[in-house]
């Protein structure tokens, strides 16, 4: 079932094109929005979260149009949003901050609000940090608090902008487990430039580059883009193909088959790098 439908979405910042007539559909489950910095991921998420008005195009969230003021409020009731820089007030305690956001989400009854704050604290495993000031939380805990505020009001659609950036491996695993649980009964749209996140979490992936959608499909299909174009060799390839030396001492090349190389099973990262083209891959992999 389509939860979010985007058609012809365009946004410019002066001369810079952030979104170049984007079309996409989001269904229930976890969808990953993958792309390099400046691809337009955050702009798209901000438009979906009603933090930004597009220049052109239409968005429908559960059939509602956020361009219409009256429907925008209803869209906001259905969305939980974690921006890339949430800016959580450092001097608030975890509990106070969630209590404040719960009021913003129209949970005005004190008893109901306290129950809701407890519920989300429990969901992100921060119950024992309720009295801790935000500034004293670790990066991972802060991200979980950001997620908790997005979950207040039990929204059907959760929009997360780069939620795993800057987390250590343990915190990242914890965060992935949380998002995975969320995706069981909600629609989750998360942007990332980590292909590991997509492989671990997402049922669908949308790749953006230069403000456009260049791929939509499953992570397996994204890996399939590089089928027959990934090679392992003992010697580095000649020419300007994208390659790197892996932990086993073999050279992994994406593109044409180097002399003496054997075909390798493509990964999501291979497909992603191939989609973005040589301009990105040669700079990113050497």
């Amino acid at each position, binding site marked *: 079932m389509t939860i979010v439908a985007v058609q012809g979405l365009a946004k410019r910042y002066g001369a810079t094109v952030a979104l170049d007539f984007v079309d996409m559909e989001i269904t229930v489950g976890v969808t990953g929005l993958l792309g390099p910095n400046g691809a337009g991921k955050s702009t798209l998420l901000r438009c979906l979260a009603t933090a930004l*008005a597009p220049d052109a195009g239409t968005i429908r969230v559960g059939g509602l149009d956020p361009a219409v*003021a009256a429907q925008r409020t209803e869209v906001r009731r259905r969305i939980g949003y974690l921006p890339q820089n949430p800016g959580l*007030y450092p001097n608030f305690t975890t509990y106070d901050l969630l209590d404040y956001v719960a*009021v*913003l989400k129209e949970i005005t009854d004190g008893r109901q609000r306290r129950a809701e704050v407890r519920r989300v604290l429990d969901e992100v495993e921060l119950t024992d940090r309720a009295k801790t000031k935000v500034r004293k939380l670790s990066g991972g805990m802060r991200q979980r608090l950001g997620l908790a505020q997005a979950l207040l009001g039990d929204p059907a659609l959760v929009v997360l902008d780069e939620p795993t950036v800057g987390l250590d491996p343990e915190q990242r695993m914890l965060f992935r487990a949380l998002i995975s649980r969320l995706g069981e009964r909600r629609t989750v749209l998360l942007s990332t430039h980590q292909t590991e996140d997509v492989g671990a979490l997402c049922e669908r992936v949308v790749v953006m580059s230069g403000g456009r959608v260049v791929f939509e499909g499953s992570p397996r299909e994204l890996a399939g883009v590089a089928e027959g174009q990934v090679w392992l060799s003992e010697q580095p390839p000649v020419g300007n193909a994208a390659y790197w030396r892996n932990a086993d001492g073999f050279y992994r090349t994406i593109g044409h088959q180097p002399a003496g190389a054997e075909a390798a099973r493509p990964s999501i990262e291979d497909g992603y790098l191939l989609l973005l083209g040589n301009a990105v891959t040669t700079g990113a992999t050497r």
Partner: protein
Amino acid sequence: MTTDWHLDPGLLEQYETGVLGPSRIMAVEAHLLACAGCRALIPADDAWLADSWSAVYDDIHAPRVGSIQRLLTRAGLPEHRFRLLTATPTLRWSWVLATAAVLMLAVAAARVGADSSVPIAQAFLVLAPILPVIAVSGAYGPPADPMHEITGTTPAAGPALVLWRAVSVIGVAVLMATVAAVLLPGPGWYAAAWLLPALLLCTGTLALATVLSLPVAAGILGGLWITGVLAAASDERAVASMFGPTAQLAYLVSAVLAAAVLILRRRRFDLGENR
């Protein structure tokens, strides 16, 4: 832990139904504490336990009700509305104290220089209308509010929230300036002359902020005000005319016009609107 003897089922039933006397209840409970087997026979009231745990948790963690909240609640401000206002950047103690300090300095300077030919008291007239404008500029949106993107995408976002925050900071700033004005030496009209300019600057800033960002709007109008008053400062008659009856009427009319523009364009405060 369990014991090698157990409570009689009939006694347990009497305990559950609450018909035992105090001494027998104490005896039964002493045994229950020591015997897991008997304890398991007493049905737990899960809902009661959950409610009790929630109440204890809330008592420990929920925000404390301070004297200001109690005062405002008695005055009719709903508790949830108070929660919204506590996050207003320019309602924090640091800002309030800084504003109070600036006003006290202006009053002190005016009192010390009351006998000099330099019109130091006029510094207060420049300053007093500006302070509410500065407060408004930091009441909502970037860069003053680091959580503006979260705030701006919630159902409560939009003009109502901006106006609630603006009115509350204006109220605090005006209250402090009024107290300072009473302490001001010089002509009696000094104490009230800044009110209508302050009203105009605040409504003007909010109206202009439907086109520009709040800090830019405040900077433009505040800058114009300071430039105007400083330009007139050398001429006592010019200063008097800036705060005279005709000028005050002009401020009032302009403030009403600005308020009309603000009402008409209020939706522009919503992040989801095209500006």
